[in-house]
């Protein structure tokens, strides 16, 4: 675990965080604008100014003490071996893409192969270009490669998509997803965009007004954490293994205890995947309909009913060892006599976020 503890007087509130994130996967620092997320990244990276306002600090990464106010330890930012992708790309304007991506590489003991990352991030054709000749999405891609090539022990991304248009965001997201698959380094990703969070996060730290109000694995928090469910509603995560690839329909069959069909490409047989499904896209029926266009209909055992916002009920149902969450109205619940212990069918389309 990466241990992070900071207390600092900010302009209008005191930042007071004490949390840990796993040493692998993407941990998202999530919260509304102005909740202190970027300040935390600045403190972790050592780029924070106004050191006088720092009350307490402790940062331990890979058993290395980086900040410790009790022992007056504060490693200089250039010695921390952490890379940072900023909201604005911050590429150096006087050198081309190639020199930019090699800037950190040359200053580290990196044993990564630049050619390999150039290939994976598809920037080969951009190597001779100067930053001013690149589009917004390309700049961020180059910035990510530049950060990765320094082979950091921790990669931080501060809302790297926020300055981009919708199209560029969609293009860049798969690259961000592949960061931790390609390189086994922990990533801390700051975002206030719920869609981004649900798609990218493995672990979530929810912040508000300078304090951590919740933290945990995405599969736990996406069901009930109010800040995470306020926009898209509750979601749930199923884990499974790809048991069949139906290429002609761009579908894969995932064995999650029950077999379900998901729209996906570029997957491999036996690949372990996690899929995120929005609870509002799941409906409940008493028997298995034979004439529905909806591909997935799986038997579930109703486990728990909770009141959700807007007068709906949040139903937690068991499917094998996993939990399916769905939202229904009180009226439907009455009509179908939904109650704990009842066997029913959950129906949902093949669309899901593959994580």
């Amino acid at each position, binding site marked *: 675990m990466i241990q992070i503890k900071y207390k600092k007087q900010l302009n209008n509130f005191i930042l007071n965080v004490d949390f840990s994130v796993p040493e692998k996967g993407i941990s998202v620092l999530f919260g509304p604008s102005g909740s202190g997320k970027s300040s935390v990244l600045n403190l972790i990276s050592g780029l924070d100014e106004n050191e006088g306002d720092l009350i307490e600090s402790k940062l331990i990464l890979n058993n290395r003490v980086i900040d410790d106010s009790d022992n007056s330890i504060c490693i200089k930012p250039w*010695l921390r071996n952490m890379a940072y992708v900023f909201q604005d790309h*911050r590429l*150096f304007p006087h050198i081309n893409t190639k020199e930019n991506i090699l800037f950190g590489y040359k200053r580290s003991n990196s044993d990564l192969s630049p050619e390999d990352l150039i290939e994976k991030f598809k920037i080969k054709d951009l190597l001779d270009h100067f930053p001013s000749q690149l589009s917004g999405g390309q700049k961020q891609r180059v910035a990510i490669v530049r950060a990765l090539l320094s082979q950091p022990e921790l990669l931080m991304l501060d809302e790297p998509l926020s300055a981009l248009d919708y199209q560029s965001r969609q293009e860049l997201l798969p690259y961000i997803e592949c960061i931790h698959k390609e390189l086994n380094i922990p990533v801390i990703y700051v975002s206030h965009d719920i869609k981004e969070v649900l798609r990218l996060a493995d672990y979530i730290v929810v912040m508000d007004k300078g304090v951590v109000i919740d933290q945990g694995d995405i599969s736990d928090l996406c069901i009930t954490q109010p800040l995470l469910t306020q926009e898209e509603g509750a979601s749930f995560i199923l884990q499974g293994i790809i048991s069949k690839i139906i290429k002609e329909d761009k579908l894969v069959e995932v064995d999650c205890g029950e077999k379900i069909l998901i729209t996906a490409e570029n997957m491999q047989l036996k690949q372990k995947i996690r899929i995120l499904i929005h609870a509002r896209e799941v409906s409940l029926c008493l028997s298995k309909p034979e004439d529905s266009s909806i591909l997935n209909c799986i038997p579930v055992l109703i486990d728990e009913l909770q009141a959700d916002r807007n007068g709906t009920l949040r139903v937690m149902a068991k499917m094998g060892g996993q939990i399916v969450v769905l939202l229904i109205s009180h009226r439907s619940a009455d009509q179908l006599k939904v109650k704990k212990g009842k066997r029913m069918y959950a129906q949902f389309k093949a669309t899901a976020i593959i994580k």
Partner: protein
Amino acid sequence: MIELAPILVTLKLASFTTFILLIIGTPLAWWLSNTGSKLKVAIESVVALPLVLPPTVLGFYLLLALSPDGFIGTVWSYISDTPLSFSFTGLVIGSVIYSMPFVVQPLQASFEMVGKPLQKAAYTLGATPYDTFKNIVLPLSARGFLVAITLGFAHTVGEFGVVLMVGGNIPEVTQVLSIVIYDHVEVLEYAQAHYYSIGLLVFSFVVLYITYSLNRKLMVRI
């Protein structure tokens, strides 16, 4: 007849001054562009003083400071036996102070334009502050340096009041162009005054034209 000596003295003075100003001015401008110190405004004001003070005021105090009993003169006496007042060295010291804002301000402005965000990005990629300065800030401030060098040089060439006060108008040692022109006018030798004046006029115009066309934003401001 045009004499070569005052031209050479002037060029030598301007070259020495610009060189020394780059050495002093670069770290000073770097500090000013990065510091959050309360002293910043005070130092900026001191650097800009020559822009508003009559050169005679500056020259007068320099004359006192450079004299054997003065502050700089006393320090100097430990280093060298020759007096500072009415010497070329004294003239260089005066010029360095007088032309300081013309070098420091464009440098400071260009360092500020490079900005902290890029420096911070370099730090996260393992570059030390010196490394960052050398490989990021310096190349991106090339125009600022060009402006600083041309302005510092040109302003020293055009200096009159301070050199008159501390220089002593000694031919081949401290006698610069502006003073030669003054001397000629005083004895009504307008033709000679014209030669030097036209030369300086054209020189100054060309220098300013080049600097302005390079970048207006880096121009000296009060």
